[in-house]
């Protein structure tokens, strides 16, 4: 389980060390799936989600790059929202004789910030964490000293409030440049203006 916050694009990587080739009887297919806080399966943009390992292969690598997480989405959409994400590693095909053999797996998540292009208006009141409650219940839990589910699943710096995105920078820069361009245009066409030798009031 890993938390993903607004604007992040998580990349899930799994490295599986398969059991000893002498114990195996045939090729095996492994896959990883990522589910969001509502248990909906999230599609992978890139990365080999599923691979078939031959009998002699010692280890395989699987990867899944999720879509960038956005702050809000329609209720009818499957878009990734901030919250907890669950990774599931399964062996989907392989000889039955190989069932129950020991293997080791390393699962890691890298996160890259994809900010402004996916910054949406609006925000969820609570991230998609199973066990999230209304604000009153959360406050009651806090007063009682218990950690709420949302806080327990939060990333290191806490959940971001999402008001900042690089769109502010673009818009402000656009405004400043427009003002400068306006001044430039004005300077070009204003002409000589009022002659200075004419006294005021004339």
């Amino acid at each position: 389980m890993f938390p993903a916050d607004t604007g992040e694009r998580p990349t899930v990587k799994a490295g599986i060390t398969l059991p000893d080739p002498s114990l195996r009887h045939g090729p095996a297919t492994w896959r990883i799936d990522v589910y969001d806080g509502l248990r909906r399966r999230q599609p992978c943009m890139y990365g080999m989600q599923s691979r078939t390992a031959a009998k002699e292969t010692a280890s395989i690598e699987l990867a899944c790059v999720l879509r960038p997480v956005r702050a809000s989405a329609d209720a009818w959409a499957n878009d990734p929202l901030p919250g907890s994400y669950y990774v599931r590693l399964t062996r989907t095909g392989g000889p039955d004789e190989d069932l129950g053999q020991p293997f080791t797996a390393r699962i890691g998540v890298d996160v890259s910030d994809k900010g402004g292009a996916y910054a949406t208006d609006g925000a969820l009141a609570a991230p998609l964490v199973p066990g999230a409650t209304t604000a009153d219940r959360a406050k009651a839990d806090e007063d009682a000293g218990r950690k709420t589910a949302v806080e327990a699943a939060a990333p290191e710096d806490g959940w971001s409030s999402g008001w900042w995105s690089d769109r502010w920078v673009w818009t402000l820069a656009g405004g400043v440049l427009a003002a400068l361009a306006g001044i430039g245009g004005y300077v070009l066409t204003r002409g000589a203006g009022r002659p200075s030798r004419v006294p005021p009031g004339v």
Partner: protein
Amino acid sequence: MSRTAQGLRPAQELTPSWLLTTIGLGATACIAAACWTAGHVHADASLLTVARFLHVAFLVVGLGSVLAVDWFAVLWLTGRRPLAGVLDTAVALQTPIWAGLGGLVVSGLFLRPDLHSPLTLAKLGLVVAVTLNGLWAHRLGQRLEAHRDGPVPAGCSSSRAWRRPSARPAGGAPPSSASSTASPDLGLSDVHQYDPAMITRKRLATGACALLAALSVALLPTGAAADEPVAKESPKVELVLDVSGSMRAKDIDGKSRMSAAKQAFNEVLDAVPEEVRLGIRTLGADYPGNDRKRGCKDTRSLYPVGPLDRTEAKTAVATLAPTGWTPIGPALLGAADDLGEDGASKRIVLITDGEDTCAPLDPCQVAREIAAKGIHLVIDTLGLVPDAKTRQQLTCIAEATGGTYTSVHRTEDLSRRVKQLVDRAADPVVTPVATEGAARCEKAPQLKPGLYTDRESFGEHRWYRVDLLPGQELRASVSVSADRAVNEDYGVLLRAVTLHGREIVRGSEAGDGRTDVISTGLRYPKPEADDGPGDAKPAAETVCLQVSNSFSAPPSVKTTPGMPVELTVDVVDGPSSASDVASFGLGRGWWLLGVLVLAGFLAGLLWGWLSRWRIAVWRTN
């Protein structure tokens, strides 16, 4: 006039000590108030980043200014600058120094400091000390003002005599070496009485320490408070060990299966976590004879489920010897009884090497019945050097209850796996509440937020009801586990429907291939109610949730009891509404920049022409 009198300025009014003390106390109180406020400010991640950046920026400004003053003081002490220069710099840099301190405190408000960490407290103490030191240094500066025009300490003419101030304590003696300008007049010895070098160095040292500590604390990660485990029943695990005659076979690491199991058990019993209540049951340990009926009842509890006494359990295990039959089914029933019916999480770990010899009681069916009782019991199976039939039986048992199957060929695998399973039992889990959905929404059970479990057979629809107030959001998710052999294509559908049958939102998932669970979820944010007449409390809407699945199975597979369904229901506050696709309706990209620049340019041109036309009109009149 004596040289002394020329060197001295008329004594300035020094800031009275009581005023400095009051300001010092006030500053300490401010910093303490800031610490207290910081504990109550909830800064989100972006604000935290900005605050950290500003904290470091103010640190650089404040520390840089202090170091600049101290560098000038060093230059003065080494005779390269007059005192007047130092004092002027000190006065000029007062603003950045105090602004830096102020900004440090204000930005520290948002840094969420961990006030229980000794490092944080040390840093805050140093900041207070530096502040107070700064106030008194201000006074020192005023005193030094009196000697502003005093001679440069021996610097310009003699290169030897300037060493004097750096080492001498207060009340230094007149210099021994002859020097024309550095005359030991009263002015200089007055200066030495205060020994600004030492005070300056002290200030420099304290300032550097405090601000370095401030920098390091600003970069310290915020410590997470350990969360209290919710007090609940401690988990129970029952290890069921096969002591049948087949365990005599010597094919695990060259030893007999029984000795491998004993060795593994010893290791496991050493590593059982404190909170787990462990029990041990044997099967086939007592009756070596040939009477099948008696052999198939041969299962007993070796160590009752409860807090573990390691020596007692180990001695009990050491006495075992491979004996009789393999009544897996009766052993599982016995183990389920041992574990009892309370609310704790329960696990059975079955370690066996052969298939059940007591047909017609099929252990897989027994496991399914145990699971259907809804007591949330998980059976993990381990097969010791299993053959195909054993494997089929054990995987069936594990699947039926949502457990795992492991095939073991080495002793260390056995001990490691059992330890892992026992540790997993100690992990805190939420126990689902058993519920039963109805065939129609009107009769459906009312669910509050939480985790529920139910059973649904192939093609059945189950309904549940949840109440939702306006301005709240309903989040529901469902998982259906395939605990039996099913066909390769399957799906699940979760719908939120009003009482009148209008579909609000749905979540669905379909899959192909081998799987053990399929899940989906939905979100329904209910909009805020428009204020109705008067202050009537808004009525809660009843949302009907329908769970349906499209699993199918070959005819040989039993359809009852249904497949396990897990349903979560959460109710949270509704989201803030979006008025635009983009955040705050802002723009992004080069096209936006280009369009804005072009628009600005055209507007400027137009304005220029307009003003030129106005001037022209003014000229003609």
